[in-house]
């Protein structure tokens, strides 16, 4: 029996707001409601890092949430995937360059799927999760390390650009 095939049948979601405006969070909660009802795919919003498989992050990383984000990521048992929801989480979005803002999530933890949109639509989130499930199935229980640890890709504004790590995600998607 191949246990890995059951991963995509019961993805448990952990939702973390790293400092966004709450717009994306409301869209994530809309996914759980009667209209989109992601529970029919077996997804639960657990709220507990130790029991979840998918980390949904919204909002840019601020100086306050930086350590907590990494801590929460470390508490999730492998295999796990990370989805950054919205423009903020992917690049920093409208908050990029602000004094309290560190930028995108991928500077601190490895991100597998980027979902675009400022205020992502629930359909996009579901699409992103479905894509993440494909990645989750291929993952192993090995530890992963942040991209930032592997290479120091500083841009002129001191922040990592997601194009720099697109090549590393491609083999996983194929």
């Amino acid at each position, binding site marked *: *029996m191949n*246990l*890995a095939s*059951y*991963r995509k*049948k*019961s993805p*448990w979601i952990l939702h973390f707001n790293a400092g966004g405006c709450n717009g994306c969070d409301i869209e994530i909660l809309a996914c759980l409601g*009667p209209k989109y*009802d992601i*529970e*029919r*795919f*077996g997804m639960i919003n*657990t*709220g*507990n890092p*130790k*029991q979840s*498989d998918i980390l949904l992050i919204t909002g840019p990383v601020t100086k306050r949430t930086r350590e907590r984000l990494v801590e929460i990521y470390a508490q999730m*048992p*492998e*295999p796990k995937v990370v989805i950054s929801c919205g423009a903020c989480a992917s690049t920093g979005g409208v908050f990029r360059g602000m004094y309290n803002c560190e930028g995108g999530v991928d500077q601190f933890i490895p991100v597998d799927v980027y979902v675009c949109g400022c205020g992502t639509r629930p359909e996009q989130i579901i699409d992103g999760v479905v894509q993440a499930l494909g990645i989750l199935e291929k993952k192993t*229980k090995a530890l992963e390390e942040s991209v930032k640890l592997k290479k120091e890709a500083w841009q002129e504004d001191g922040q990592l650009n997601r194009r720099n790590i697109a090549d590393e995600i491609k083999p996983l998607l194929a």
Partner: protein
Amino acid sequence: MNEYLIPVLLIVLAPVIGGLVYGFDRIVKARMQRRIGPPLLQPFYDFLKLADKRQMMVHSTHAFLGIMHFVSLWFALAVLLLGGDLILVIFLHLLSTSLLILAGYSTRSVFSHLGANRMAISVLAYEPVLIIIAVSIFMINGSFDTSVVFASDQPLLYKMPLAFIALLLILPIKLKKSPFDVAEAHQEITGGVEIEYSGLFFEAVYTAKWLDYIFCYTLVFLFAGSNILLGIGLVVFTFFYLAALDNSTARVNYKQMLRFSLGVAFTLAFINLLINSLI
């Protein structure tokens, strides 16, 4: 030989049946909210997925207590189905719950402590009622053995309806259903005692929840005596009652829960005991 066949089958298959009941419960709850809901086998998918996660434990005692919670609950269920002493069953169930409470206290997580506190309070809320119901059954049958209850052709329901109502009132506390789900309170303390469990060890706690369903429905079934049709009717009624209650009520705090269960459910059970001992 034959009279043991069904109980033994039920005991061996209890986690499977419990998982199906839990899956069906989730579907019914979703349909009541006009959602489609997960597939029926969803609990088993969860089970298989959790088996595949990397093993992490807080410390070995914590993991051990979680597994012992499952084992002792299964044992309590076995004693109940094989016609053992009802008081023994209740105390075995209490033992399994207290193992989980101990596990909750053994970690350093605040939520785990809060969950353990609240779980201890809910034990305080439902345990006296259960004991009174057991004593009422003793008053009627002259024995604590559930085998006598299963064999009697006069359903307990007609002799002690108040006790049945009391049982219905405490079942949400026992199964951690809203409005009495303070012990679990997913939006508030994210599961309480089970928060620190992960992977295989969470599985033990998760499956114990399914066993709890079977345990509670067997308690409901007791009220039908040897009348199997009535028993199935009662179980189905209780199932939909619990699902409807879970969907239509909001969580109360632990003080209100304690006041309600000791004020209303305990009083009902006690009046029932008085009536039974007078007749």
